[in-house]
């Protein structure tokens, strides 16, 4: 999710605008008493705002719609970030919607007022130079900031890369300078600010994956630094093992294989018992729930015990033979 503090409804209080992986922007309105519980932003017709892909809470599945796209065709693009931006400088906020896939940004105009927004429900691709704004891998979030101090807002955005990989290229941070003017933005070609680098290393050195940037003057020296959230990926250096430790590694590896087989057998027994106990019952009925609970109680102890044994063995093995690590941090890139 991206995050923006903005007085969206012009009531004198900052609101918190965001979008999540459900595919739509949400807003928590600020007031004297604090933030309201977040609610979904809707267009002038009362429909939820989106790009194309979204999570349908009623049908409990991912779906696509083309209703907001110019050609009416659905596509695999999901809004996971949103920014309020007075694109046409008419005094009210329009919306920029950021797509996870391809890193596209869409503009949705507000044809209402600053206190009574009426979004069109129609997405207009934001261009970067001659091409639609896009990034080399999936986009985390764009941010608006006057990066070049010329009085208009530029775009800075981060990329994910693959958040579970431990090799290959990581994510980066990109800039598109607004070469237009206030009320008529014209974003230039996308350029690297923080170049993606090859993953690796024996300790966390940088945010490698899922880079969420926030351009801000962190140290108060008058220039813009970058605060970047993200996962670091590294593999601690292995140490030299003694003969006994090498034997212990072999023992633990074998033990984990056996425990994995035993764990599979426990889950199979659990499934078989559950199937037998609930055969022919409506899965929404109370009887189904009661019998499921009984079966779960019967097996839970054994499953937990097995899980504890496996964790202990794995932790001991990891001490001896380090595995690739992946952890989330927040980093400061101080501008020099």
């Amino acid at each position, binding site marked *: *999710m991206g995050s923006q503090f903005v007085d969206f409804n012009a009531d004198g209080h900052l609101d918190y605008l965001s979008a999540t992986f459900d595919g739509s922007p949400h807003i928590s309105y600020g007031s004297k008493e604090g933030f309201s519980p977040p609610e979904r932003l809707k267009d002038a017709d009362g429909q939820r705002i989106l790009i194309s892909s979204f999570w349908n809470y009623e049908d409990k599945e991912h779906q696509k719609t083309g209703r907001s796209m110019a050609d009416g065709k659905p596509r695999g693009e999901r809004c996971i970030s949103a920014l309020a931006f007075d694109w046409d400088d008419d005094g009210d906020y329009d919306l920029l919607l950021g797509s996870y896939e391809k890193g596209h940004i869409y503009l949705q105009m507000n044809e209402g007022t600053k206190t009574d927004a009426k979004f069109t429900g129609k997405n207009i691709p934001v261009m970067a130079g001659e091409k639609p704004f896009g990034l080399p891998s999936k986009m985390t979030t764009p941010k608006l900031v006057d990066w070049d101090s010329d009085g208009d807002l530029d775009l800075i955005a981060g990329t994910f890369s693959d958040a579970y990989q431990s090799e290959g290229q990581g994510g980066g941070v990109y*800039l598109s300078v607004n070469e237009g003017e206030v009320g008529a933005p014209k974003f230039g070609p996308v350029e690297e600010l923080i170049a993606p680098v090859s993953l690796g290393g024996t300790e966390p050195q940088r945010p490698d994956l899922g880079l*969420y940037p926030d351009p801000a003057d*962190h140290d108060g*020296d008058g220039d813009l630094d970058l*605060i970047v959230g993200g996962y670091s990926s590294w593999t601690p250096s292995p140490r030299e093992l003694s003969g006994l430790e090498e034997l212990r590694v072999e023992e633990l590896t074998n033990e984990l294989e056996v425990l994995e087989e035993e764990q599979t057998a426990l889950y199979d027994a659990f499934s078989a018992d559950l199937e037998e106990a609930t055969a022919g019952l409506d899965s929404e009925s109370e009887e189904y729930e009661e019998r499921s609970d009984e079966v779960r109680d019967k097996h839970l102890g054994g499953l937990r015990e097995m899980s504890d044994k496996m964790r202990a063995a794995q932790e001991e093995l990891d001490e001896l033979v380090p595995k690739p690590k992946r952890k989330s941090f927040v*980093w400061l890139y101080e*501008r*020099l």
Partner: protein
Amino acid sequence: MKNLKRCGLTLVMLGYVASPSSMSSPHEDVKAPKFAAPKRLMAGEKLLGTGRAYASPVLHDLNGDGHKDVVIGDLFGRITVAYGDASGKYGAEEKVMDRNGDQLEFSNW
């Protein structure tokens, strides 16, 4: 860098013309800025953002005390804050609550 730019402006006003090798172009600074090696920020005794799923930070003075705080959202839509103090340090991450006293949490699938 702004200080340097201001110095440059003063020198131009005084009639000094810098040679290309003695002054970096503003364009170069904007599109190819130099950053120090990244450092992890702390929140109290812990590293900020540890254990969060896709930490999405924003620097903002949430409590209006004149010091910048780091507000963090995550994949689950949960919002936390590490309050900054006059020394530029951040306190331990804590939940941001809504006006009803519940953690501010944005809906996700």
